[in-house]
């Protein structure tokens, strides 16, 4: 629509700017707080310009953690979070693309039953099945381990469904041409389907990486050992009690660190991500 109505333009911009302020201001405050001394934050009102403690605060949390709450270094937590997020993202994609391949391209007994079983698990997110899942993981001795952190979160109906929908749009003739060319099922999967799915894979990777990174409840339950904390849990463990007792500058620095990797993944993979969501390459 091409319109030239100054008032509408003004209104649109005003609303957008307001929206940006509402979203961005808390992030800005977080950043400012992460550069101040604790005493400065405790003043009312808190200064809204960055202070001079940036390097001190960040190096403190990265290497040593907070002094009052958990003393685990955030550097190690970032590593844990990265491992967890990567394992969940890659694991989910690997498993769901293979199950979608099986469901779409093979005729086996109870095929639709299996599909619906996968589909029904959509209704059972971790939060709903958390107690039995915890029991299973505990009995298997997987508390405080990367396996315990990731395995229960890897099965994904959403991703399976997404790949299924994508595979169903791939023309049957492509599979037949590959058969005539002499490609077996796995060859077809690797040489044809996988390259065609790469934009979907990229989009899913971004979504699932953030999903894995932001996990809170599950890691909170199964990590009791400081060395297994993820960054998000680290923030929680730094908050020890009443408002004044917490080192908000360090907590905010940790929060900034926790926000950074998902933002980086989105920014770096933006091109692929958008492609995967809006276009199908056929």
């Amino acid at each position, binding site marked *: 629509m091409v319109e030239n109505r100054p008032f509408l333009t003004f209104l649109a911009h005003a609303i957008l700017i307001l929206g940006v302020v509402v979203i961005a201001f808390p992030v800005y405050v977080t950043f400012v707080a992460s550069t101040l001394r604790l005493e400065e934050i405790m003043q009312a009102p808190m200064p809204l310009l960055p202070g001079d403690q940036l390097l001190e605060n960040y190096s403190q949390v990265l290497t040593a953690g907070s002094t009052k709450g958990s003393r685990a270094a955030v550097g190690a937590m970032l590593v844990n979070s990265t491992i967890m997020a990567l394992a969940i993202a890659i694991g989910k994609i690997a498993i769901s693309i293979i199950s979608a391949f099986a469901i779409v391209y093979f005729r086996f007994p109870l095929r639709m039953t299996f599909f619906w079983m996968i589909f029904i698990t959509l209704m059972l997110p971790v939060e709903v099945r958390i107690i039995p899942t915890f029991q299973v993981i505990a009995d298997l001795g997987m508390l405080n381990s990367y396996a315990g952190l990731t395995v229960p979160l890897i099965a994904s109906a959403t991703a399976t469904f997404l790949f299924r929908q994508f595979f169903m749009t791939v*023309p049957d*003739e*492509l599979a*037949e*041409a*590959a*058969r*005539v*060319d*002499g*490609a077996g099922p796995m*060859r077809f999967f690797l*040489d*044809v389907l996988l*390259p*065609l799915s790469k934009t979907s894979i990229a989009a899913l990777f971004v979504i699932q990486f953030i999903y894995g990174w932001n996990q809170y409840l599950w890691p909170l339950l199964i990590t009791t050992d400081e060395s297994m904390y993820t960054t998000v849990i680290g923030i929680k463990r730094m908050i020890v009690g009443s408002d004044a007792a917490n080192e908000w500058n360090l907590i905010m620095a940790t929060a900034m660190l926790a926000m950074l990797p998902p933002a980086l993944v989105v920014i770096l993979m933006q091109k692929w991500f958008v492609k995967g969501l809006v276009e199908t*390459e*056929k």
Partner: protein
Amino acid sequence: MAGVSLRNVLKSYGELQVIHGVSMEIADGEFIVILGPSGCGKSTLLRMVAGLEVISGGQIAIGGRVVNELEPKDRDIAMVFQNYALYPHMSVYENMAYGLRIRGLPKSEIDARVQKAAGILELGQYLERKPRALSGGQRQRVAMGRAIVREPQVFLFDEPLSNLDAKLRVQMRGELQALHRRLGTTSLFVTHDQVEAMTLAQRMIVMNAGRAEQIGAPLEVYARPATTFVASFIGSPPMNLIPKDGKLLGVRPEHLEPCSPADAMLTIELDLIEPLGSDTLVYGHIADGQSARLAARLHASAPAQAGKLPVRYAPQHVHWFDPVTGKRIGP
């Protein structure tokens, strides 16, 4: 290269039988067209030869070897699909080389074959392009290239020209003919287009509802259709079928010629006239009250106007059919 034998080939999906026993011996190097309306089972028949559909009954042999239980890749065939089915993420070169790579041919051999096919099909300058960056005709040629490089015993074409525009279709038809002359590979070509069938085929199978109605050379099929289905499917406009003496009299539109009312064997009540330039098509029904629709192809110079048109036909151009079975009666 090899011949293909279809021996009472059957296909059914559960209870539903779609191919009711087709038998044919195809000689080495022959170009066979399978012609029929949509849903007649012609593509299914081709896909059974390719190995993409299970053969429910009968036998298919390629080069004397029964292939019923063989995978497509072991049948030594190559197939060209209607929508080309090129791998979208591979370049033209990779598309053609893929099958050879799977077979484990040495790189130099693959390269030689692809370059040769690209030369034949004039695709040399497009080898690095992705299918997306090609026109419909070029994609079609890549699909053919992919078939050629395999050097198969049999080419299978599943309506390969139907996605092209009319002009390109004529051109590709010519190229296909030239290609067949050059390679001499046995070819099966499925189409619903009678012009493609008439121009390409050495012999053709006219199929209807899962049965081979007639097998023969195009002109022979045109001149002596075995059933009313073939008579009305081939030829445009189709053969006129007029009930007469308890039988069906068939006469082609071009064999009706205007005459004086005294000589008239038929009088057509014209209601539609289509001047095509080269000739004029007229349509109507028989004036004596019978309801059969008739068409006649008149010379462009013939006066055509709505009203009565007396026509006659030569006895040698008459066909007789049984009105119940639809089968041809007599020679």
